[in-house]
């Protein structure tokens, strides 16, 4: 049952992704002002959605892990952090690619991109914390605490960065939110892209969580073997 569900899910993800790619590259019309490069917007926004959603999952996993103590929640948090970091990096890269032909610079300090940069640094901190330490339950708790605190901070970061940019406008004034989507085909494409990337997020999460769960099972097995060996020699 679980097997067929997972196969179905992967099939669906592939389909959504192919549809999204087709729509973005072939079906949706060009945006009036920006031309061809604007198409990256559909991927850029979808990646951003995933990056922020994944961070919420890091926090949720952390909360449940601290509360209930089961490793599966920590697995969720860790998997979400790795996946989220990937997509967050993509947001920054696609943002750069988009900015260059439009504004002539590789980077702009507009509020959304800035917030994403900080999110990227928070992801980095979380992953470094885990990478530079032994994988003990205590480290998992530390990571959970950081994830929760960071996620709670994100709304405050969003607000403060937005105020930072509006009250003192940037040297390069970017058009905040190119969400004036005139054509309904644009809206549909965006929705499909969002769905496709969300499905991709779920796929990556399940993959990674399965790996983490297997590693954990292996460790438990090794521990039990060690215990049994010791008992045998008693």
């Amino acid at each position: 049952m679980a097997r067929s569900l997972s196969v179905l899910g992967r099939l669906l993800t592939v389909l959504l992704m192919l549809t999204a790619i087709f729509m973005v590259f072939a079906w949706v019309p060009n945006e009036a002002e920006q031309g061809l490069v604007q198409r990256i917007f559909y991927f850029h926004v979808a990646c951003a959605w995933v990056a922020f959603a994944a961070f919420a999952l890091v926090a949720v996993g952390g909360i449940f892990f601290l509360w209930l103590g089961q490793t599966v929640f920590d697995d969720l948090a860790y998997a979400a952090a790795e996946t989220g970091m990937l997509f967050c990096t993509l947001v920054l890269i696609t943002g750069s690619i988009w900015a260059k032909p439009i504004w002539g610079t590789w980077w702009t300090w507009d509020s959304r991109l800035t917030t994403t940069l900080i999110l990227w640094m928070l992801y980095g901190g979380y992953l470094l914390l885990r990478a530079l330490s032994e994988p003990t339950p205590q480290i998992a708790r530390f990571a959970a605490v950081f994830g929760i605190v960071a996620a709670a901070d994100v709304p405050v970061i969003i607000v403060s960065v937005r105020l930072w940019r509006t009250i003192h406008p940037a040297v390069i004034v970017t058009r905040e939110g190119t969400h004036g989507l005139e054509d309904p085909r644009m809206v549909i494409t965006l929705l499909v892209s969002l769905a496709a990337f969300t499905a991709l997020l779920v796929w990556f999460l399940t993959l990674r969580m399965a790996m983490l769960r297997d590693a954990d099972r292996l460790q438990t097995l090794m521990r039990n073997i060690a215990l049994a060996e010791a008992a045998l020699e008693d």
Partner: protein
Amino acid sequence: MSSAPLIATDGLGKSFGTEPILRQIDLSVGAGRALLIHGRNGAGKSTLLGLLAGLLRPTAGVALLFGEAAYRLEPAKRRQLGLLTHQSFLYANLTARENLEFFARLYDISRPRPLIADWLARVGLAAAANELVRSLSRGMEQRLAWARLMLPDPQILLIDEPFTALDAEGVELAVALLNRALARGAAVVLTAHQATAPAGLAPDFRELHRGRLIAPDTRPHARALVVDPAGARVSFGAA
């Protein structure tokens, strides 16, 4: 007065990663009783004390103090718990008296001054009461550590290798303090290297051997697999 043991464990186990340090630890210490656990270095004595004190979480089984899980002991019960390890638990830049006053406040002792003066005298530190701990000799620091331990009159005492670094006088003092506590109904768990207790103390003995707690002199003989080629049988026999 309940006769339930003050300190007890049930199938207690602790593994660090895949390494089993303690397995199937069952012990029980009632009021007025002392248990001395001996074992070689690295046997896991400090880990066991850490579990009993509620500082470490067990990976199997449970450690109980006053019938409650040590890891989740409520503050009111922690007031009656005393721990002493190799570390002094003293602030080097506070005086002897200031250290005791601080811990007295922490343990909610009302009118601590006379009690503190009492204890300083009892451990022979009345003259050095206003000296910084960092300027005390090692022996004096240890005595102060004992005073700090006993100040709140704990009902449960967990002490890691109390006699190792003490001189003869210090050992005498420690034994006297332990007996005083035992007479007041405390339960005591000590650890040591050797299976001997100083004169005046008569604890029960257990050895921590390869992660298990065994009664003295019951260390299992080394065994080996014995293969009988003729009958193609394999069994355990004496080495």
